[in-house]
């Protein structure tokens, strides 16, 4: 690669260049330009990671299709399909947009922030953004026998009895599924959904 035969002698470069002030001037110019652009912008739509929220919200929507709930999970034949949300208000906004106007098996999908324990049983999917492990354990203990698909995005979510954990791996949102927890909640997860999961824990009934 480096056959330095008859190597041409290397000369030291001499310094030639524009004065530093022109350099600073250009930098300042560009920053002003950028500032201007930012100033001109209006509206509010930037999320810390829009794509991640969007992908996660679409997963929740897909879960409604690829999971079967027992009949007793719905009060009436026309009762809406409820996706409950604990924590993360920004995600709530994205999720609300995603499910707006959507239906699953003829049921309207609604998004509902969950504030009290009494509301746990009112939803079909419960998305839990709770970094506090103790609190997370308490929530999961309360819903584990209800026909509620618990979805999380935190460490040890499945160990604590959650059904589906959304995990970031190699820049992607991947799925880990806990079939034991699903069975306890009387939920049947389709083979299609299981086939895209990275980790499937436990056995189907």
């Amino acid at each position: 690669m480096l056959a330095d035969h008859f190597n041409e002698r290397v000369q030291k470069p001499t310094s030639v260049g524009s004065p530093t002030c022109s350099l600073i001037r250009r930098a300042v110019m560009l920053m002003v330009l950028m500032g201007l652009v930012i100033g001109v912008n209006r509206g509010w739509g930037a999320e810390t990671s829009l794509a991640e929220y969007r992908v996660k919200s679409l997963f929740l929507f897909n879960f409604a299709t690829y999971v079967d709930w027992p009949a007793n999970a719905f009060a009436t034949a026309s009762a809406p399909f409820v996706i409950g949300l604990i924590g993360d208000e920004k995600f709530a906004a994205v999720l609300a947009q995603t499910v707006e106007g959507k239906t699953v098996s003829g049921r309207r999908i609604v998004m509902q922030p969950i504030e009290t324990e009494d509301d746990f049983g009112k939803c079909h999917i419960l998305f839990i953004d709770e970094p506090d492990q103790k609190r997370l354990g308490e929530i999961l203990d309360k819903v584990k026998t209800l026909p509620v698909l618990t979805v999380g995005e935190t460490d040890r979510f499945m160990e604590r009895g959650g059904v589906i954990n959304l995990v970031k791996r190699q820049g992607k949102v991947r799925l880990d599924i806990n079939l034991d927890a699903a069975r306890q909640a009387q939920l049947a997860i389709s083979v299609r959904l299981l086939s895209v999961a990275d980790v499937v824990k436990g056995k189907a009934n």
Partner: protein
Amino acid sequence: MNRINSNPPVNALSVALAPAALALALALMPVLADAADAIRPSKSDALENLTLEQLINYQVDSVFSASKYEQKVTQAPASVSIVTADEIKKFGWRGMGDLLRSVRGFYVSNDRSYSYLGSRGFQRPGDYNTRYLILVDGHPMNDNLYGAALVGNYDSFVDVDLIERVEIVRGPSSSIYGNSAFLGVINIVTKTGSQFNGGEASVEGGSFDTFKGRFSLGKKFANDIEWLVSGSYYTSEGQRKLYYPEFDQRISSNPRARNNGVVRDSDGEEAAQIYTSVAYHDFTLTGLYAFRNKDVPTASFGAFFGDTPLRNEDQRGYVELKYDRQFGETTELMGRVSYDAADHLGSFPYDYAGTGRPQDTVNDYDGSFGDWITTEWRLKQRVLDRHTMMVGVEYRENLHQELFNYDDLGTSFVDDERTSRSFAAYAQAEAVILTNLLLNAGLRYDHYDSFGGTLNPRLGLIYNPWEKTTFKLLYGQAFRAPNNYELYYSATAFGQVANPDLQPETIQTYEVIYEQYLPAHLRFSASAFFYEIDDLISQTLQPGTGLLIFDNVETVQSKGLGLELEGKYPGGLLARASYTVQRTDDADTGDEISNSPRHLVKANLSVPLYRDKVFAGLELQYQSSVGTLRGRRADEFVIGNFTLFSRELVKGLEASASIYNLFDTHYESLGSGGHLQDTIPQDGRSFRVKLTYKF
């Protein structure tokens, strides 16, 4: 597209265009964003109709390479850029060279032999990217003879269509990677079988009688086996005729000058690549073999000019078994064992007759063969829910390290055969000090047979005062081990002696980064750096003998600032603009080093023209003038590239048409010490069309 490069003045119009185009791109961002929003309701976007398979493979904002585990870009202890497969298609990038040219702060030069990467004002002419660690799925590509890794369009050994994303981590990362993670780490993440889920065939053709074909098959089977196999072949005639005034005997006094400085049919290139991966649960087996042959018209290293070109032939391959296991939700064990081989052969025609005598051309062969076995194991552990610890060990056994040089007459000038080994241990901790303050600290010890041990730390303090705002304060140290060529290549016949006492080069960097998410899907980042390279290995004259020898002689200091604004919109609109200003000096003389542009401007704009099916991609790159090895200056230039890309107009078909060097700008790369040419003119306007069919 043949053109005789006769040094016309730089196109003043195109130079003036750069800032104007940048301003236009920036100013248009919000307007275009509004337009994109208006076309469809904001809740509906390109993601809306993704299948489950596409969803699990959709890239969100995170990076692996900075810490060897997945983390948010804003929490990585480095300035990171991520480039995706989508951008590769929309901007018509032919390979890693095109891709890296578009990245903030990077510049790529080419001497019609190889491509050379520069960043932070540092690029030594003739340095085969030894100060960057190039990874393919985390597997190091730098060889064990020169520490070289190739990053050109067709010599980087990974087919561009197999790239899922490229992570560019700026600054030193020897604290987790060891050798060569000096100015940056570039990790090429390849696609997996399930992402193809079937077959794909691709053909492309363009200027310089260029042709490329590829065939890929990939699938995830019901039994959880995921498999991918892909092969490609590329050939190009290159420039049919090139003119080098340095070799024009009418105006040059060099004894090798002849043929009126004209060289014909000596710029051809050929490359092929086979890649396969099989994954089953925790195991992934990967195999890669690639070759690349290039005719070199520049008659470098004193070779005979004209008639028979010199030729560089490179082969690279590896087999790797990777194990990645999650224990519970807090522990992860990763291990890999691999076998690598790298082969290089350069053939150089020399006129043995000497000046004035009848020509007597003899071929000389300069090359190397190296192979090595590497194993690395690391354990990642979540501690007390919030903190992350990682420890790792790495061992490398160099089975063969051979450097040789001989000629057709049977004379052997260099014949150096060795074996050696190195080992390393490292640890990294990410501690959550406050809910909005992270400390990332890493330390790695490497031991080499040649020079002994080296310890390299990295410290990062990452502060999120507000949700959309991140400050990073970084300190890092890295090393580059002297390579076998520098240590042992001894050929007194060419006036070059070995220096087995070489010490590693070291770099220390300080960096402050500010990242801000802004309204209207915009993201802004600013990064200011200062670094000092000590004991830089350079070729000098040995005192007493006057022979060439590599020694730890130079100290280089650099400071600079990089600004970037990026907007990604749900409709598929993408706009990015960056500006880098830097100054890099030889600390002893105070002179600016060669090949160090003070200003770099990049602008990339991709606009959806028809739904999410047809896109127009425009990129502009400005590089200010640089000093050459012979103390002259190579002019500033602006390059524009344009690509029209469509997908799914016909089911399963992607088509694109690209024009490179849109303004037909005359620009030059620097020659190295081995070149008679101080600067080497680059290609003018050229085009390519490409079709990809999925089935």
